[in-house]
């Protein structure tokens, strides 16, 4: 299966936020009232109605003020924490193009994916259903680019065959964020600085508790249940129950059944 992916060259980003607007337009997401926080960054966080956004990270370089711009969105992980914890079959699923999409009708509103995601991406809408970037899988299936990519005027956002994007990006010489993390992210970045400077984890992983819960406790638990049933049955037919002697008198700690 050939996976498609986003490649995001942050150095090209001018923070015009066309991607934010295009996403809202295509996905029919309403505007939200926000407050001025003293930064051009707005809204401050991803919401159920904001599936991608530009982060304005304020830094200093050689004594001069500098912005780092980062298009934040669902990373479409190959090993996706949200899909790992989702109890509802088919609510979160992977498209043929490798994107992590969802079916709101099957979402049961348990909110588990919010905690299973290593990147704190999934949100819940007013109907208590999951909302996040789905890579415009509807457009992609029909041969179009995702809305944000289509709208990006600088070539910061690229979308296409994952292997090809990586091959092209490697010619730039910059390290690629997400090439192998979580078995390969579906949204990769070319960063000028360290990942931490962009508030990205250097080595994103499935949270340890989630791994223990789903990959250790769950299988061992099913084994444990049937093990307990098996031991009880085995005991019954081998050693047998502690029968009461209805008529006899107990002989001092007798050895009857």
């Amino acid at each position, binding site marked *: 299966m050939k996976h498609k992916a986003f490649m995001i060259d942050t150095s090209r980003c001018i923070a015009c936020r066309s991607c934010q607007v295009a996403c809202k337009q295509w996905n029919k997401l309403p505007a939200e009232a926000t407050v001025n926080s003293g930064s051009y960054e707005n809204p401050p966080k991803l919401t159920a109605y904001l599936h991608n956004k530009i982060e304005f990270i304020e830094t200093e370089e050689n004594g001069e003020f500098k912005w780092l711009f980062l298009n934040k969105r669902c990373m479409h992980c190959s090993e996706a924490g949200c899909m790992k914890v989702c109890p509802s079959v088919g609510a979160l699923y992977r498209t043929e193009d490798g994107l992590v999409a969802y079916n709101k009708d099957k979402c049961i509103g348990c909110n588990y994916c919010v*905690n299973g995601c290593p990147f704190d991406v999934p949100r819940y809408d007013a109907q208590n259903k999951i909302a996040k970037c789905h890579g415009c899988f509807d457009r992609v299936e029909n041969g179009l680019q995702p809305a944000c990519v289509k709208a990006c005027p600088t070539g910061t956002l690229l979308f296409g065959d994952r292997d090809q994007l990586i091959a092209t990006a490697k010619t730039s010489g910059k390290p690629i964020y997400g090439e192998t993390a979580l078995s390969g992210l579906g949204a990769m970045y070319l960063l000028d600085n360290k990942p931490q400077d962009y508030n990205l984890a250097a080595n994103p992983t499935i949270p340890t508790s*989630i791994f223990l819960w789903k990959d250790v406790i769950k299988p061992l638990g099913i084994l444990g*249940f049937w093990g307990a049933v098996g031991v009880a049955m085995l005991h019954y037919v081998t050693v047998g129950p*502690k029968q009461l002697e209805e008529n006899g008198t107990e002989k001092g700690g007798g050895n009857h059944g």
Partner: protein
Amino acid sequence: MGNYVKRFSAFDRVVHWVLAIAFFVLVMSGLGLFAHTFFSYFDFFGGPEQGILAHKIAGIVFLITSILLFFAHAKDTCRFDSDDGRWFKGFGGYLSKDQPEIPQGKFNAGQKLFALFSIIATVILGLTGYVIWDPTSMERGLTQFSLMLHGLFFILFVMGAVVHIYLATIGNPGTIDGMLWGQVKKIWAKKHASKWYQEVGGKD
């Protein structure tokens, strides 16, 4: 009546069976969240949202009844003596038919251990359940840890319940009488809880 001795009050019995029903509801509704294999169990409740609601209500019932039952028997379940040590060493006589029964109080050492495990597990499941009641309300790391711990103690509790049900029914005939109508046969008391039998005035 001459052959019987009173073991559990009506209060004990009612609380125990409400707790048992709540436990069953919790298992059935919780399994849907535990693994894809059991997702269809939500159908028993009319859907996933209703199943989660049933789980929360049953959880509160289970927590309250568990605490009531624990304190009703705490004076009998929280003290271990040297006979209990011997009981554990001999695995309660469950590994062989040739072992003499070790004198035990109202509850044998294994039952006491299960009572203590139950209350500890209940409190842990209650606390973690409170954290994951709304999984977005608290710190992410704490919620992830609580989800894991809730799953772990769910498993341990179900395994404990399997053993409890086996030993209280076909594993030890006559035991369930006490929980059904409050009385057990004198020969049961003499065999399984000889020290208690003497305390309540049993002869020979």
